């Protein structure tokens, strides 16, 4: 799967290149808008990552140009600005996504995967039952079981567990959880998410089951899938 990466900062570019390659992507690198257009013409890509501030122009302009010249792959926009302006929000409704710097690489990967999955309409979202190890989530009946044991979860806890299951085996950050489960893009200075995870973990392991939900200090959480 080819990813066009447009990032002018050399250190960030190299970091992205390595991370993408390690995750099994085939990165196509560009440092400027001109290079990006050239690369997009010669190499068809399945996805794009575009930094908004480029030395030879605005990332939004580049994205518009790319789309006009037939680049139909979804794009993940990286922005160093604090507030995301309306043009980026407009692109988001058009099937693209954005991420503000500094970002956790795990979040970037998760968003990238989401974009690709959405673009290829892999019916992952269509499943009505999610299974991770001995954990089963029935999305229709909103019921979670650990083995045979039904877990007593609140609505929010169920949504949180559903989100973790959909990303089983991958790390999710606190800000991803806040965005997807609570619908807020905030960075709480306190451990509000940790306490929710802690409660969920208690309910999942009440009867001495194997620990599944692992905390990675400083980064986030992983729901282990094996």
């Amino acid at each position, binding site marked *: 799967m080819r990813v066009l990466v447009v990032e002018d900062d050399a250190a960030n570019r190299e970091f992205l290149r390595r991370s993408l390659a390690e995750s099994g992507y085939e990165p196509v690198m560009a440092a400027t808008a001109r290079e990006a257009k050239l690369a997009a013409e010669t190499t068809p890509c399945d996805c794009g990552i575009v930094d908004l501030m480029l030395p030879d122009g605005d990332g939004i302009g580049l994205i518009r140009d790319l789309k006009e010249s037939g680049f139909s792959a979804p794009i993940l926009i990286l922005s160093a600005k*604090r*507030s995301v302006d309306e043009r980026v929000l407009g692109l988001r409704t058009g099937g693209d996504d954005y991420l503000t710097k500094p970002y956790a690489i795990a979040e970037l990967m998760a968003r990238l995967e989401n974009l690709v999955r959405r673009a290829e309409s892999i019916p992952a979202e269509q499943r009505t039952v999610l299974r991770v190890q001995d954990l089963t989530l029935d999305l229709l009946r909103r019921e979670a079981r650990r083995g045979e044991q039904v877990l007593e979860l609140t609505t929010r806890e169920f949504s949180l567990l559903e989100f973790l299951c959909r990303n089983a085996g991958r790390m999710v950050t606190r800000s991803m959880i806040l965005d997807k489960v609570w619908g807020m893009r*905030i*960075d709480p200075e306190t451990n509000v998410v940790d306490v*929710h995870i802690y409660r969920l973990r208690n309910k999942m392991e009440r009867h001495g089951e194997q620990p599944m939900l692992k905390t990675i200090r400083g980064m986030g959480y992983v729901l282990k899938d094996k």
Partner: protein
Amino acid sequence: MSSRTNERGVTAAWRIALGSTLVFALGTMIAFLLLHEFVSREIQRRSDAWLTGEVSVLSDVAERTPRGALYDRIVDEVAQLATKEIPAGISSVSDPTQAVFFMETDANDSLKLWVGPSDSAVFTRIITRNRFKPEIPINVAIAGHENPYRVVQFVANDGNVIYLGMSERNDHQVLVRMRGYFLMIFVAIVLLGFAITFVSSRQLLRRVQRVTETAAQIDQDNLQSRVPAIDGNDEVAQLTATMNRMLDRISRTVEQLHSMSDALAHDLRSPITAVRGRLEQALMADEPGRIKEPIAAAVEELDQLANLLTTSLDVAEARAGALRMHRTRLGLNQLVHSIVELYEPSLHERAISVRLQCEEGIEIEADAGLFHRMLANILNNAMRHLPPGSTVSLTLRRDDGMMWMTVEDNGPGFPPEVCARLFEKHVKGRSSTGHGLGLAFLHAVTVAHGGTIEGRNRTSGGTQLILRFPC
């Protein structure tokens, strides 16, 4: 610098004055030429009318009157008429016969009768050479006379020809006098006009020049100079006022930029130092197992640093009135419930309880991201500053087109040293571990949304924040 702008001002004034004076002079000249033409035509028309009228009367008289009696009567008539016609005091010539002549000749052009200037032979010779149409006056120049004569001819029934002539000297004198007067007035008006335009445009340009000089004085170090205020409300006064307003804005912006960068440096240096310390600690660690912990802490601190940067810039921008917002319609009820639900476990863990009292269906045009962060901020504050066992209550109600949000607690209240300056940046209680941005951020967001915020210690203990938004 100053002398150069001065020179430029004078030349501009000179140019403006010269240009307008030239146009004015040209216009006046054209108007005078038209007037002159009209007056001279009118004078000639009048004398022609007199001549033709007079000659027909005279010829009538000449035909009917016997020779001997005719002469005296004509002399008398001509003299009287001529005296009447020539306004007294214009000419030094007291003898009217110098200005008017009467001549009668027979069919062979020999002089039969003459009344007029003494050189009758010259007159006869010259006049009889001309061809006349009956009763239409023509100009005839007579040798020895400065001005031509206007002469009309009448042929009587008996073949005799009567001529009546009048010198154009008087007409000429009128026109000469008119031209003289005009020239005097013309020169006076043009000079006066030039002087007035020059002086007034130079005064005007001097005022403009003051604006220029003030602008020229402004450089990186000096943003304080202002153009002296000018009374009145004309264009230059407006220019001055606008220029001063612009300078105010610029100097305000520059001040804000300075205070913003100072504040940023202040906000960033300590956390950066902390992160650096952690990483150094990781580098110094001997066992691989002890590397992870400081790095994880460093990452967490970096996240907080990014967050701090965002908040600090938001506060600075909001204070400068330049906070960028993306407003949408927000249902506050649901928003407050879900944020309280997010914080509830953490607050519960600290034995702080939350009471939420929320009127249904309150909506507000607001930036969702900023509002989320504002509410998170309020609950962060509660978590940070309230001792176990406290209660924080959040009340939302709508009243009179405004949305009122009240946040109250029964904790220790604001420390007395910060009470007066609650919403200023970097103001925090002695025991606070924060950056002193929380309430400043609340204030910034509230004001950016057109609302107001008040904070005080309740008499019964604890703090009270009242936020008001138009909705």
